[in-house]
């Protein structure tokens, strides 16, 4: 069969011909042409009916999560062999420095204690620490009250705790992350959790009073949001039994299992 005949038959099968007369005549001209047409038509219609396969919601979420996890591992630079000794060396140095500090302060502390004892002793050697406190409370006639000076509390702060970012910023950040989770977007800040430590994570969720939730990822918040233990990731948990798009999303500080934010 010639190429142009095959193309004419294929065009007829695919519905690309404005005028089918020539093609129909060709098919009718021989068994070979008719069989070719039947085969092309059978296959073409079967394949057109197969449709484009789609990812399920959970497959889509898993795909994004796994791709970002793999890319994160890509971006971690390879470390030289000697690097594994760094934590050991750091630990040894820490212990040594601590010992030096403690031993060198030993002499100084003895001096401080002696001085304090002299302060408490009003000269007759019979006063007690309680007496000294009582004298301080009284203020003493004509004595200065600078020893009982009041330390003023800071004013005008919007911090929830000393050194923490404003609550509104934290809330806004986690609300945004919750929306990403619901949309199945696992960004570079997220990583899969270590399946081997599942018991630990379940008990953490229990501590945070999150029954019916399941950890789906760990989140590495930016420094200006992270109010917990620096470097500890945040657990990302979603409510079970509902579609991800409708799930409640909880963020838990892994270091102390404190609920940071619940987005419903």
């Amino acid at each position, binding site marked *: 069969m010639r190429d142009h005949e*095959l193309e004419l038959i294929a065009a007829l099968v695919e519905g690309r011909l404005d005028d089918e007369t020539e093609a129909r005549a060709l098919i009718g001209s021989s068994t070979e042409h008719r069989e070719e047409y039947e*085969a*092309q038509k*059978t296959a*073409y219609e079967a394949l057109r009916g197969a449709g484009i396969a789609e990812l399920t919601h959970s497959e889509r979420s898993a*795909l994004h999560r796994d*791709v970002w996890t793999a890319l994160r591992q890509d971006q971690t630079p390879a470390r030289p062999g000697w690097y594994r000794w760094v934590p050991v060396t750091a630990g040894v140095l820490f212990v040594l420095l601590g010992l030096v500090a403690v031993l060198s302060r030993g002499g100084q502390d003895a001096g401080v204690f002696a001085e304090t004892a002299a302060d408490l002793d009003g000269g007759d050697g019979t006063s007690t620490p309680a007496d000294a406190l009582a004298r301080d409370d009284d203020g003493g006639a004509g004595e200065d009250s600078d020893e009982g000076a009041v330390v003023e509390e800071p004013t005008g702060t919007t911090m929830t705790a000393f050194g923490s970012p404003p609550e509104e910023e934290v809330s806004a950040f986690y609300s945004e992350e919750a929306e990403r989770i619901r949309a199945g977007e696992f960004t570079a800040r997220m990583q899969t959790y270590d399946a081997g430590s599942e018991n630990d994570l379940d008990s953490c969720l229990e501590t945070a009073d999150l029954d019916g939730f399941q950890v789906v990822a760990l989140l590495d918040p930016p420094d200006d949001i992270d109010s917990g233990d620096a470097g500890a990731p945040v657990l990302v948990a979603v409510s079970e039994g509902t579609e991800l798009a409708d799930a409640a999303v909880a963020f838990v500080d892994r270091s102390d299992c404190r609920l940071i934010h619940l987005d419903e």
Partner: protein
Amino acid sequence: MTTAAQDAQLLARVLEGDHDAFSELMRTHEDRVFSVCLRIMGDRELALDATQETFLTVFRKAGQFKGNAALGTWIYRIAVNTCYDQLRKQGRRRTDSMPEHLDPADHSAEEAIDAASVRPEIQRALDAIPEDFKVAIVLSDIEGLGLGDIAEILRIPVGTVKSRVFRGRRLLAAELGNRSR
């Protein structure tokens, strides 16, 4: 489908380290990539692996995209090559189109079956024909790509694409005919 200008802009943002841009790129192309991988691999799990590998390659090689072809065409090419690599590693063609361990009572399994719109007999017939012909008719008759696009993806002449499509359909029809007896 995105325009060429939109694709170029998206890729430029990816190269600048914009992770949101890459997520957007994935969302735009993931269903088509998965569909091609599923038809070629014939197995959902393998297709998911191939899809993941495709996007990893897209990210790693984003700097190599020259813009000579549409971004979608380039991604398709990576997907097809990834599937070929995976099939070579397997050493044989798989004939099971549906994972047997899926319990129909399992909600996620139902979801998978509904979403796939897979007709097992067609996938089995596809798996029985040589890969070159299978890929050609999958791209042409399932994905609806033109002969020129397929030629770009596979880096073969248009004439060769036509030949593979016609021959692929003939082989598929024979397989379907054999299986219906």
